[in-house]
């Protein structure tokens, strides 16, 4: 049971990150290995804000105050812009030249190296923290303990996902994004401004990544590798859910989180890292396009 709760918590964070991955995979059709670095940058941007404003005194059962939430929002904006900047500097140029998707993947790999080590250069490798408070988990159900912080995180993550879903299904820009995910050529024919959609995609991906980064940073530390460490879970989740699909990324994220935690009930933790992939392999054998994916 505890494992179930843990799985949901891990899953929420993975889901947030996976959304950005699935969008770039779906709309821009390339595997952006630098995406995980956006999580790291988001966490560090928030750290900078917190360094000035402080994390806020523990509010209620949470270990931090509204200042951290504000910091997360600021970080989301900054990271969204950063994501767009990286695209403008590197990926867009390659796209304009009709570069093969694989070239983009390796350019992303190079970009990830640079982004991660810029963080190292500025902040070093040591771990940092938003707050020094240590929370005690409360027993919400018999045998299941969770931290109030974590419930807050899951709540916020779900709110973000629902908000995004509403945006995608109700607003014109949202629908334009989904159209592009289905077929960029057709979308253009319909008069959708491709560059605008692309820009928005990066900003949203970056913002969500920032939230994911802050959440990882809360539980419980920030260091330059936090994004890189979840990179593969993010991709597993996005693909397993079906690329380009928001519900897919969310479901995929939770499944990956659950798989990682539940599997430990039967196998040695030494093999934990393989779990997202075994799960992915299983799902792909049964349904090669992913859970919500479209058969191409």
């Amino acid at each position, binding site marked *: 049971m*505890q494992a179930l709760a843990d799985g949901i918590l891990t899953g929420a964070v993975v889901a947030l990150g996976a959304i950005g991955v699935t969008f770039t995979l779906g709309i821009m059709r390339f595997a952006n290995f630098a995406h995980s670095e956006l999580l790291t940058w988001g966490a560090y941007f928030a750290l900078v804000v917190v360094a000035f404003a402080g994390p806020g005194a523990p509010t209620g059962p949470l270990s931090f105050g509204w200042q951290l939430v504000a910091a997360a929002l600021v970080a989301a904006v900054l990271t969204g812009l950063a994501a767009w900047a990286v695209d403008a500097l590197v990926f867009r140029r390659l796209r304009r030249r009709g570069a093969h998707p694989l070239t983009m993947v390796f350019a992303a790999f190079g970009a990830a190296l640079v982004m991660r080590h810029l963080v*190292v250069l500025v902040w070093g490798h040591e771990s940092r*923290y938003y707050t020094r408070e*240590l929370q005690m988990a409360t027993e919400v159900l018999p045998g299941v303990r969770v931290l109030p912080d974590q419930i807050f995180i899951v709540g916020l993550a779900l709110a973000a996902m629902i908000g995004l879903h509403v945006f995608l299904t109700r607003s014109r820009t949202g629908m334009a994004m989904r159209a592009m995910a289905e077929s960029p050529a057709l979308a253009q024919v319909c008069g959708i401004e491709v560059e605008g959609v692309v820009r928005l995609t990066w900003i949203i991906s970056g913002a969500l990544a920032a939230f994911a980064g802050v959440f990882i940073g809360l539980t419980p530390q920030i260091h330059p590798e936090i994004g890189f460490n979840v990179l593969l879970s993010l991709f597993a989740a996005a693909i397993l859910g079906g690329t380009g699909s928001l519900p897919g990324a969310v479901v995929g994220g939770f499944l990956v989180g659950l798989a990682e935690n539940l599997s430990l009930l039967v196998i040695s933790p030494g093999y934990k890292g393989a779990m997202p992939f075994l799960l992915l392999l299983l799902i792909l054998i049964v349904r090669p396009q992913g859970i919500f994916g479209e058969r191409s």
Partner: protein
Amino acid sequence: MERRRRNTVVLALALMGGVLSAGTAAAQSCPVKIGGVLPLTGSMAPITKKIAQSAELAIEHVNQGGGIKGCPVQFILRDDQGQPTVGVDAAKYLVEVERVPAFTGTISSGVTGPIISSVTAPSKVVQITCCSTASPFTLDGRSGGYFFRTIPTSKTQAFATASETARRGMKKTVVIYINTDFGTDMLRFYKAAVAKLGGEVIAEVPYNDNQPSYRAEVTKALAAKPESLLLIGFPKDGVTIVREWLSLGGTKTIALNNSMRTMDFVNGVGAKFIEDVFGMDNAQVAGPHVDAFNTAFEEKFKTDTKGPGVHTQYDALMVMALAMNIAKDLTGPSIKDSVRRVHVSNGTPVGTGPAEYKKALELIKAGKPIKYFGATGPIEFDANGDVTGPALVWKVKDGQIVTDRIITIEEMQALFKRVEN
């Protein structure tokens, strides 16, 4: 100038160059280079920073104290990025291109191993590591005697840990350990010692590092209903694990290994939450030589000397420099044979710092034996290239890391006898 004259001049210059270089062939070519391979980036990087600083301090003291064979020392430090092929390439470069007579490195045994087998042993170059504790490297003779370490192997630490947990009556212990050679080595020796000394290990939970959360592993450990925890790992993940352990209701009876003995760990978890916790470390035999090092380090880098590898790295380089002065020339075999002469039983004691180093050089020049007492204590290598040392028990008090008690060398030796018979 016209061609014939130019050719003559060139020929003359060449001849002169040849004569001059022949004349200086016998003299030592300065500077003397010492190599280093450390994981400056990668997952070990958080602990490497201080180790690299310690190395820098050692080289500075060596140069202030007179260098090696009258030459200043140039330290060339390469990053192995935690990747074996990169580390091996760096070591090979240092040995073949920079022609270092000796080098120090590295930390992860996945990188130290291939370096020993493809560079150190075949090229017969002395390698002294501050931090690689995998026991097979010295025990199975693969290095041909060229590999030394200034840190005791995990066996020492594991046995000492077992003696302490037994002494405190820790029962129903679950061990959460990092799934590397270091962790598995420690676990194996710990269990062997526990079998003889008392205590019981009721569950063993390995973890792979670099994960955002260890709730799953902690949950699995807690499922065994333990009364105590032994955590073997490194500070970065150690912090996450201890925090999750405590917040999920785990007991505060926790034992830690040496790497956690850093303020990074203490502050990361929060000092007030770990007041009852204790840890083990290799001790430095107390004395002016240790204090001199601590003072010099703190003065130069404005930070404390607590952390894995800080003292042992200094000693690794000091021993190297002293051995290179004692050696009749700077070839591998000569240096190898001189390493143990850095600490001779009837030698004059020399300690840490530039003044002591200078004293040592004078003694060496006069052909007198020396006995080096380093930042970790007396450095005496056994037949395999290992050192033993005392151990200490540390704990957190008022937000500081303090030493609780020391297990002396004699007690350690008695301990070894008890466990291994």
